[in-house]
């Protein structure tokens, strides 16, 4: 008991010191936090028992209670709504609207042709242009997308994977035009190809060259774009595809380890890139399990980074993550009920210590969100932040018998999975063999059967239905857009310097043949010459081949 007490006292002192340092840089939102009854709210509630070491204080290894010493007492999570549809110009308008409404970061949704490296005038793009996100064909579209948005002040998250290098280069090029050097750019590219093979489907190249592009980005950014998150290792889509919470964490961390292995193999130092690894999780309805899931994920990653990879920089140990509420939990029936689901899920993410959050809109089981729906979704976060008081103390569920037990159990079950994946030969091998895909699909099917047997109640779907559904107003993407986008590529190809484009593409092709060469500078050159995303990706398709699924 005394020994624990002494050790805890030392931990506590370290935490208090770190709080002092943090507050100097990020003062707390208020001098004192109180409840409505004027009861003062402490920064942290804790006990000096044997659990204290396992949990760690906030900002302290293994970060069960959060990655910062004061968490939301200093700064709320970043409210980051994923948006994008139609043309760059329209999306730019929505971005500026969201920033005016108090959103603190941008998050770009790209249409499927962009995500799979096709120009809008490619045959494969037919019917898909501008549908699930904004169509970006060249630097010209990116300039319109980011028009009048100061890239030195706004951090931008881009949901882009297979052609992440191309979009990152476009972002760098726009920054340069705005006079913002790339060292100052902040944001995130998703860049997580493994989960595309597992769950999301927007792959282009086979796993090996894809992993090369990813490590090329790690290396380039470590040197030139140090504030950019080079990857967002995503459990989100794994969960949407039907996994359990445990599988979500397990497969995401397994993928994370595969990226670390690939980067180490290419000769990078762990502490050079690990601090820029970010994560992206889902928040579903089982409230306490979700809270525990985030806490467990932090602890597992910290241990893996410190003990398995022997990273020295504490920043390398911290699992920083973005959360999006669960799209697949939304119902097309009685869509306003989704506002309540989203609120619960968002609350779980905040209780789990998320760094940034996207709240889904009520109408997303039907179409892309309307402006009104997107505003309610943002307001939901603002109400949680400013009205509920849940952000006034750090990790309020810490020490709850239930939540701590769930955290431990999730941790154990995730470790079992990690062992199984290791036996298979790591995440890349497991993906190629379809192990994760099978596990997820099995659970998706079981879930569907439970819902149809009414063993799992979905309000409005299999219980409490309405006889007549109200048809809400939905967002429509203008069908003319595809034609306009095609025309704009045609115009661009007329006015750009043809010779320069061909030279840059040829240089990229040659570089791609040399496994040791970092491709990012070549892609950046091509982008600046206004080569299109399709042209750049086709060069790489020809050299790398295409992945055709299982």
């Amino acid at each position, binding site marked *: 008991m005394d020994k624990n007490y002494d050790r805890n006292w030392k931990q506590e002192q370290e935490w208090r010191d770190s709080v002092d340092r943090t507050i100097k840089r990020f003062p707390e939102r208020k001098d004192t936090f109180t409840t409505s009854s004027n009861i003062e709210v402490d920064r942290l509630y804790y006990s000096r028992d044997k659990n204290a070491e396992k949990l760690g204080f906030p900002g302290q290894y293994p970060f069960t209670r959060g990655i910062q010493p004061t968490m939301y007492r200093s700064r709320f999570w970043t409210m980051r709504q994923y948006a994008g549809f139609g043309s760059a110009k329209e999306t730019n308008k929505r971005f500026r609207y969201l920033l005016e409404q108090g959103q603190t970061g941008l998050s770009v949704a790209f249409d*499927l*042709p962009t*995500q*799979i490296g*096709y120009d809008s005038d490619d*045959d*494969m*793009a*037919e*019917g*898909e242009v501008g*549908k*699930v996100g904004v169509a970006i064909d060249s630097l010209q579209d990116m300039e319109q997308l980011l028009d009048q948005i100061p890239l030195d002040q706004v951090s931008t998250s881009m949901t882009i994977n297979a052609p992440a290098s191309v979009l990152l280069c476009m972002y760098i090029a726009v920054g340069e035009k705005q006079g913002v050097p790339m060292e100052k750019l902040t944001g995130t590219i998703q860049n997580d190809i493994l989960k*595309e093979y597992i769950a*999301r*489907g*927007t792959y282009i190249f086979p796993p090996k060259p894809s992993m090369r592009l990813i490590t090329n980005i790690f290396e380039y950014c470590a040197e030139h774009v140090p504030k950019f998150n080079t990857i967002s290792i995503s459990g989100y889509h794994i969960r*949407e*595809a*039907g996994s359990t919470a445990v599988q979500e964490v397990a497969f995401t961390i397994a993928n994370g380890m595969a990226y670390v292995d690939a980067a180490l193999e290419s000769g990078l130092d762990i502490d050079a890139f690990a601090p820029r690894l970010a994560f992206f999780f889902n928040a579903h309805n089982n409230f306490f399990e979700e809270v525990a899931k985030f806490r467990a994920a932090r602890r597992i990653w910290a241990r893996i980074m410190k003990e398995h990879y022997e990273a020295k920089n504490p920043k390398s140990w911290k699992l920083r993550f973005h959360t999006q509420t669960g799209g*697949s939990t939304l*119902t*097309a*029936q009685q869509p306003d009920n989704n506002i309540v689901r989203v609120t619960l899920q968002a609350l779980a993410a905040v209780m789990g210590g998320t760094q940034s959050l996207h709240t889904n809109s009520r109408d997303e*089981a*039907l*179409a*892309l969100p309307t402006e009104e729906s997107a505003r309610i979704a943002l307001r939901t976060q603002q109400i949680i932040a400013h009205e509920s008081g849940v952000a006034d103390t750090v990790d309020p569920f810490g020490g709850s018998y239930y939540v701590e037990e769930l955290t431990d159990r999730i941790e154990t079950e995730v470790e079992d999975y990690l062992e199984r994946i290791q036996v298979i030969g790591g995440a890349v091998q497991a993906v190629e063999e379809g192990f994760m895909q099978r596990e997820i*699909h099995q659970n*998706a*099917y079981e879930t*569907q059967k439970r819902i*149809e047997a009414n063993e799992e109640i979905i309000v409005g*779907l299999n219980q409490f239905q309405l*006889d007549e*559904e109200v*048809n809400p107003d*939905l967002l429509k*993407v203008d*069908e003319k857009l595809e034609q306009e986008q095609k025309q704009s590529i045609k115009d661009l190809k007329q006015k750009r310097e043809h010779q320069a484009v061909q030279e840059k593409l040829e240089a990229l092709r040659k570089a791609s043949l040399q496994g040791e060469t970092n491709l990012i500078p070549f892609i950046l050159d091509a982008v600046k010459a206004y080569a299109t995303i399709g042209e750049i990706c086709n060069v790489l398709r020809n050299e790398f081949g295409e992945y*055709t*699924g*299982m």
Partner: protein
Amino acid sequence: MGKIRVLIAKPGLDGHDRGALVISQALRDHGMEVIYTGLRQTPAQIAQAAVQEDVDVIGLSSLSGAHKSLFPKVIDALAERNASDIPVVGGGVIPGEDIPFLLEKGIKKVFTSGSSTEALASYIKQLIDPKEKKLESPTKIAHIGIAVNNIDEVLSFYTDSLGLKVEGVEEVSSEGVKVAFLKIGESRIELLEPIEETSAIKRFLDRKGEGIHHIALEVDELEERLSRLKSEGIPLINEEPKTGAHNSQVAFLHPKAANGVLFELCQHQENRGAE
């Protein structure tokens, strides 16, 4: 007839195939042969696969909003291959207002978010196997059931005041009730009196008092009809027919199925074919 062959296809670039995979497996569990194309199929590839695999039906899934442009192209591609006889159904994230357009373009039916795999499976079975379609609509009201505390006390109103004729009084011990039938045209009024504390009629009287209890519809093919209703997700009290008064076969639907009205389906001897 052999196994129903189904092609499940993902047109366009959309990578969300949770639904397509779940449906594939559910249809397999219903005894169908399912071919899943995988992601990113062009309309031409889908039509080609359907012809080559000689499928009976095609299911298209799209969650990206491209359905209005891609689904009709699949219909066109089938026509080009003289395969317009293969019915096409669709599903995914599809706004209700787009459905009439898709139906007009030749899609047979659209199953949106929240549809059950059971409903899809039974729809496909009916679509493909015409024998399954034969169920006739109910032709008449067999009787209206009225719950009463005591038949003897009320019978004179029906016989003397209304002038109806009693067909018979019998006890149905399996239900714990005594019933009296009064003929009215081609239908009957059924008076129900509880004879056991545990009978459903007793519970009804305790809760709601005397009054109309249920409406019975005369049907044929009761067994088949029940399994059809069940597969469509209609809540049933009796999933199997049981013996009712006059040696009929009866089954009750759950009142949830019809805004609180209790329906009984009953099939009398003469409707059960040659016996």
